[in-house]
């Protein structure tokens, strides 16, 4: 009799559980990174970029979910320097996690996508802008919410061409990422009718402008480096933020700086408050105690994509969500003025590219007049006809 009662009790608990809300666990893999050397006294040192965006995405998913009986949770895993992602992927796979925010550099991301268990997952790349990940190294189980370098360069190029600043002086940093960014700028110039009048590497060691009288050195160095034939705009490729900010106000000719510093082409910026972004920025700042960075925004987009699909489907069925996100009905509101979708040919999220100044938003691309047979958003980045991606 007692046993019977106990069994009945267990059954009733199980029954209750089924009627209660369901939980979707989303994985997050980040990696410890060497903090960037702050270039100026106003720069914030940030150790949790990306992660905070994913957390806000969960909070936003949850606030819709509570009306639908859906709960969301983030399972966080930060890789130590040089740690391979395979273990984390396997643990997530064993736990039945189907969606993982991959806040990883390109190499780590490719390892993660090939790790055992990853074939049953969708990895959402919120960090690596490498065009190769959308081209020859594209993967069926990877979607990208961070814009590619090609998208950033195209967004900037459209604005500069719209301004009729067509003659560019391209200055390229020493790292492979800078070379890749420069390649994207060259491609964009050719696509949109700009001309690179001077193309040269930055060969100086990163100076420390914050040393006492650091400005004195820079005031003599920068004019020497920028003494080139006339141009309209200095386009700089310096992703590590080592020297680009030293250029403004110091060039030999009085010209503006754009690219990775100056007028910055980016997926997100703290200066954006249009299209309702004020609320997103406020929510983020309240949660994280700092401004939202592009990697935060990309991670937020990734988590929100899953939540949006779950909302529309009234279901946490992972296979259905994965299909819905990649389908034609999917549309995510991302505070950039229009709905965001994923490109079927390479898994890249279509999105406007912000052109941000240091204190205010300057513009947003695509620019008026750049037309496309499908959507103007496909004027940014690698288009269907150019894609070499084969899943």
């Amino acid at each position, binding site marked *: 009799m007692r046993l019977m009662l106990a069994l009945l009790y267990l059954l009733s608990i199980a029954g209750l559980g089924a009627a209660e809300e369901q939980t979707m666990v989303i994985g997050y893999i980040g990696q410890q990174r060497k903090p960037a050397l702050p270039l100026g006294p106003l720069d914030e040192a940030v150790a949790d970029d990306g992660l905070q965006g994913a957390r806000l995405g969960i909070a*936003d998913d949850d*606030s*819709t979910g509570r*009306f*639908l009986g859906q709960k969301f949770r983030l399972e966080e895993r930060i890789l130590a320097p040089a740690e391979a992602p395979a273990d984390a992927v396997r643990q997530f796979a064993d736990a039945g996690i189907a969606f993982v925010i991959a806040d990883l550099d390109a190499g780590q991301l490719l390892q993660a996508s090939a790790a055992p268990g990853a074939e049953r997952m969708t990895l959402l790349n919120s960090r690596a802008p490498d065009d190769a990940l959308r081209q020859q190294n594209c993967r069926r189980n990877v979607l990208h919410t961070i814009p590619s370098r090609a998208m950033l360069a195209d967004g900037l190029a459209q604005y500069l061409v719209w301004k009729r600043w067509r003659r560019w002086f391209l200055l390229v940093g020493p790292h492979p990422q800078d070379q890749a960014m420069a390649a994207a700028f060259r491609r964009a110039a050719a696509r949109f009718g700009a001309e690179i009048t001077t193309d040269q590497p930055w060969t100086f060691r990163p100076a420390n402008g914050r040393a006492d009288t650091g400005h004195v050195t820079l005031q003599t160095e920068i004019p020497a480096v920028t003494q080139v034939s006339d141009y309209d705009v200095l386009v700089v490729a310096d992703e590590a933020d080592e020297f680009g900010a030293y250029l403004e106000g110091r060039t030999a000719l009085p010209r503006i700086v754009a690219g990775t510093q100056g007028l910055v082409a980016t997926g997100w910026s703290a200066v954006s408050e249009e299209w*309702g972004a*004020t*609320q997103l920025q*406020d*929510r983020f700042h309240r949660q994280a105690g700092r401004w939202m960075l592009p990697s935060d925004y990309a991670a937020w987009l990734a988590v929100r994509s899953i939540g*949006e699909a779950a*909302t*529309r489907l*009234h279901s946490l069925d992972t296979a259905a969500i994965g299909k819905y996100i990649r389908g034609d009905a999917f*549309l*995510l*509101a991302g505070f950039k*003025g*229009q*709905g965001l979708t994923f490109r079927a040919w390479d898994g890249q999220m279509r999105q406007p590219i912000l052109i941000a100044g240091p204190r205010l938003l300057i513009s947003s691309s695509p620019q008026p007049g750049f037309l496309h047979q499908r*959507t*103007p*958003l496909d004027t940014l980045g690698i288009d269907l006809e150019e894609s070499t991606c084969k899943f």
Partner: protein
Amino acid sequence: MQVLMALLLAAFALAVPAAAETIYVSNEQDNTVAVVDGATMTLLATIDVGRRPRGLALSTDNKMLFVAEGDDNRIDVVDVTKRQLVGQLPSGADPEFFAVHPDGKRLFVANENDNLVSVVDIAAAKVIGTVDVGVEPEGMAASADGRYVACTSETTSMVHLIDAGTLELVDNLLVDTRPRATLFSPDGKQLWVSSEIRGTVTVFDTATHAQTGKIEFAVPGIRREGVQAVGMEMSRDGATAYVALGPANRVAEVDVKTLAVRRLYLVGQRPWHVALSADQRRLVSANGNSGDISFIDLENQEVVKSLPVGRGPWGVVIGP
């Protein structure tokens, strides 16, 4: 003689009925409310109000104008006769839009940053209740019988139906992406919700809460993502609705019975909200990007005038 004069004056007043009409427009970027004479279609006055004014509405007796000041976390009260600020009401944080309850005593305010609807007692100047809703509440409407209040939440993509008496959530209905405005039909039988990002209007039956229709807007020469549905207004007889289409620079006229789009009016850039005149013959749109309002003559089906009113016109209401 005096009687004659009075009679003449009365006759003159009757001959120009639109003279009694005044249009109020909130200028989001100027921190002002523009006051426009309906008869002459000219700017009468510009009133300085708080920071980032958006939602605005008249009191039920038409004597006061309430203006939501998003960046000042309050609602300003403007005496429409004196055309000046005479008071303030608390609103909760970041009020964007609000509805005046038909009882004339309460405002229901969407607090965009706090995921709340605040209920404000106008006479006591106090927040007397709050309702938890989804992320970024925006559109607000009250049913004519005063039983229900509806609130959209932009990021949650829902319309929340609130019992105006108990302040309890009656239902949460999923709608298309980034809902903006909501309205009850005058007979209270339908609830309309516009979606900015999907560019649609969803129609619900208020008795069953079932979705009964969806309106899509095709604008020749403009791509799907350039057509976004925002502010709405429905005629008093419940036969016709008007929907501002944001970046498509159009206002759509919709047959409420068939949900067919009858025609599109080309107005200024980025219309946010629209308002109908008391005689239902004229519609005014507030055009955010071109800094003007458009007057639409609904009988002759044409836009008759654009009038610059300030920077960032957002909300518009028409009073006596």
